């Protein structure tokens, strides 16, 4: 058996890559993709602990995370389209309507 630590470390790496992408990338769509990466890292943690404790509840939670991620992607991409239509750019540095 692969110990649960390996899966948790893998999830930590995935989450860190997603976090780095969110703060480093300037394209709004790529930022969204990195948020999906972070959600998947959380799912992997749930499933690893679920397997480690022999308890199926983690699978149900991961299912709900997937459903919420799907809803978030739909609404988020609609917002991206609306922003692109009004501003003509996807660069997060140039969308500063709420700054002042």
């Amino acid at each position, binding site marked *: 058996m*692969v110990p649960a630590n390996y899966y948790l470390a893998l999830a930590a790496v995935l989450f860190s890559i997603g976090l780095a992408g969110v703060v480093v990338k300037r394209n709004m769509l790529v930022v969204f993709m990195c948020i999906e990466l972070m959600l998947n890292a959380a799912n992997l943690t749930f499933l690893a602990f679920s397997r480690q404790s022999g308890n199926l509840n983690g699978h149900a939670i991961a299912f709900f995370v997937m459903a919420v991620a799907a809803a978030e992607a739909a609404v988020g991409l609609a917002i991206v389209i609306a922003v692109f239509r009004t501003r003509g750019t996807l660069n997060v540095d140039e969308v500063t309507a709420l700054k002042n």
Partner: protein
Amino acid sequence: MSDTAEMVVFWIFAVPLIAGAAGVIVARNPVNAAISLVVSFFFLAGIYILLTAHLLAFLQVLVYAGAIMVLFLFVIMLLTTKDEEYARGRVKLMQVGGAFGALGVLAVVVKAVSDLGPMPMRLVGPEFGTVKAVGRLLYTQYLLPFEATSLLLLVAIVGAVVVAKQRI
């Protein structure tokens, strides 16, 4: 499966998974980033199968690699932008700080995981993670959240149409 064989399979899935995830933030073209993300989602489904989460692995391919990524690609194709202007922009102090912050988060979490000590997996029955077992759980103990999920998806669909449509 023996321990060594399982470890080999784990690394076979884990290395391309990390490479695909890194490709998302390395790629300059958003289309390349999306393709890289699809690849990493497929390998993550393999990791799920190794964790005997068969239903979740199936849903991972179906929902993420199928539905969500098609949506992403569709929006990328719809909003054709000049991606060179993102690549050429100056690296800001905040970005460098953010990258180091992500490294710090990684260090803290890996330290916490290694401090836990070895966590051997429990032996589970053949039912664990199958469609039958997870489905039964979803329709008994998690019935109310499950129904709330359907409502959430409906609201998301209506909201997406309202936000993205110019005139209704």
